[in-house]
């Protein structure tokens, strides 16, 4: 270790004499020393402190075993030589932390029936609501934070999202895959938990007047379940409908902007109204349905089976609504 220039301790005379002919260089050297000895450690300490406090908050929010859960899952994927779809828990961890804030503090989600989700491959079929897919993130967060063992939820995203920088990478790092049937089949073969909203856009962007009424279901998930022999777990989310109040969809605006829908949400014009309203979420996982049959059967036969699932979810929603006493508590 070398002495700082302003404390003339061991043999400063000789040093100063040698340096004086070149004052500019001496000044630069001194700045360099200060930077190396004082500023860098200070920045390092501040950075370390900030990270520690983030970590502490994380423990309070996520429970002490959060890191362990992330490690457990990481090990599970590493065993298979890494997730082929690009899931990276080091990155996903931070996304889950953000979601955990909403799950624990903002929406104060109440989760029931998590024990109904089996450990192996499973299709989670849920109602879709709330204008932006927060419901999916909350279902995923529940499965990560509260399910034993922790699960990563896999869902399908729009194809065009792959053309967007950062978005495509983010989706892939948190385990979301491009919505094509081959990917769904492969995920189930890998023993993953696949979340599907059979209502799609019809469900998520429906106006406030039609809240908690299930829209038309697609048939694709049923064929997939039968073909791969996957149990279906119906999921009902109550509370998401009211996070953004949609007064109606403007068809002409949607057409002009080439969007699937153009919802009218007055609250976004109020300061801080862009955040979803802090309604209370109730997430209910139903008992798994094992549906038998032939995957190549007629649409009419499929629709009957789909209807069964739809009925189950609708009655779970209705029960949840009956039990709910207040929107926010």
């Amino acid at each position, binding site marked *: 270790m070398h002495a700082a220039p302003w404390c003339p301790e061991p043999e400063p005379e000789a040093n100063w004499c040698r340096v004086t002919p070149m004052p500019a260089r001496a000044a630069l050297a001194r700045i360099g020393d200060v930077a190396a000895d004082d500023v860098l450690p200070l920045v390092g300490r501040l950075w370390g402190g900030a990270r520690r406090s983030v970590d502490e908050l994380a423990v309070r929010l996520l429970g002490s075993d959060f890191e362990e859960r992330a490690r457990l899952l990481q090990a599970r994927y590493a065993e*298979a*030589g*890494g997730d*082929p*779809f*690009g899931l*990276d828990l080091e990155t996903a961890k931070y996304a889950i932390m953000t979601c955990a804030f909403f799950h624990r503090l903002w929406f104060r989600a109440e989760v029931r029936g998590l024990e109904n989700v089996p450990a192996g491959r499973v299709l989670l079929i849920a109602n879709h609501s709330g204008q932006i897919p927060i419901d999916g993130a909350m279902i995923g967060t529940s499965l990560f934070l509260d399910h034993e063992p922790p699960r990563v939820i896999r869902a399908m995203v729009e*194809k*065009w999202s*792959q*053309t*967007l*920088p*950062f*978005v*495509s*990478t983010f989706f*892939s790092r948190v385990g979301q*895959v*491009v919505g*094509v049937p*081959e*990917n769904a089949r*492969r995920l189930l073969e890998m023993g993953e938990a696949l979340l599907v909203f059979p209502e799609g856009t019809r469900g998520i962007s429906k106006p406030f007047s039609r809240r908690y009424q299930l829209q038309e279901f697609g048939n694709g998930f049923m064929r997939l379940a039968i073909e791969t022999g996957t149990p279906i777990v119906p999921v009902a989310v109550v509370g998401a409908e009211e996070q953004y109040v949609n007064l109606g969809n403007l068809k002409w605006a949607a057409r002009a902007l080439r969007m699937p829908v153009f919802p009218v949400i007055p609250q976004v014009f109020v300061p801080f109204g862009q955040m979803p309203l802090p309604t209370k979420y109730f997430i209910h996982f139903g008992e798994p349905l094992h549906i038998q049959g032939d995957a190549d059967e007629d649409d009419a036969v499929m629709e009957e089976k789909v209807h069964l699932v739809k009925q189950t979810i609708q009655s779970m929603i209705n029960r949840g609504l009956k039990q709910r006493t207040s929107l926010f508590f």
Partner: protein
Amino acid sequence: MAKRPTPKKPTPARRAADGAAAARIEGGAVVVTGICGRLGRRLARQLHRERTVIGLDRREFVGKPKDIEHHSIDVRRKKARELFRRPDIGALVHLGVMHDPRLGAEEHHTWNVIAFQKLLEYVERYQIPKLVLLSSANVYGPRPDNPQFISEDAPLLGANRFSDIRDLIELDMLAQSFFWRNPGTETVILRPAHILGTVQNAPSNYLRLKVVPTLLGFDPMMQVVHQDDVVRAVRLALRPGVRGIFNIAGPPPVALSRAVKLLGRPTLPIPHAMARAGVERLWRWHMTSFPAPELDFIRYVCMVDDRRARAVLGYGPKFDLGSTLRAVDEERWV
């Protein structure tokens, strides 16, 4: 001139003929086109100890092992046909697909398609019992709506956005129709993922750059395969009884950023619009060997499902991810 073969019926005679064909595939000479390329030389070096290897390439074979017979002739010439007339030829391995995007489309097309058509004609006329074409997983093309793993029966859409590889797709299609028309020849099409090694192809050249440019915000998953794994796949394809299309993949897929990090190279992320404009200019000024449409390969996924190769061909990669990636830095004296 020999007559066209008549389709055989499944009779005892056919079975005997099959046995003869199998013996011919196993014991006969192997004609390798494009043998003077880096991959061709590697294949020749492995193959010539076990069986007769005949090289067919316009180029000179530098450092040719003594027992390899090499013909520096154009496949389209009459002399090439004379070669195939020999009764001891058991298989044709076509590696001579030209991939130089600098050469004009016309020259490319004539060489690749016409030459391969000629070869197919010889194989049909002289009833060569085995044909192996080294195609590429690039025929599927990197696209935003690709499934994560593309299977062999997927459409070949690679030329949608990158028209320079349409002759490779045409070759693949020619081989496919040949497969159906000529059941007497065991046709094998191999579609390997990005081949890495001493070879001079775009992915290896890309990873050899001192600073690796990437697209800002894009980090697709990639499959890479070691050149010697590809050589092994070709040798497995030469066994009697193997026919059809096989995707060939290497170790488990890896994100592009991680692959570059494993190689210890710095990256330079560039926004896509800028990168595209830049590469187009550089290409026009002959300052890069990468045409702009190839940027899609570092933007979207183009990975293959190799389960068929594992089950039917008995193929599995011998090289792990680290050694496959490091192969691009190997000494290139072979």
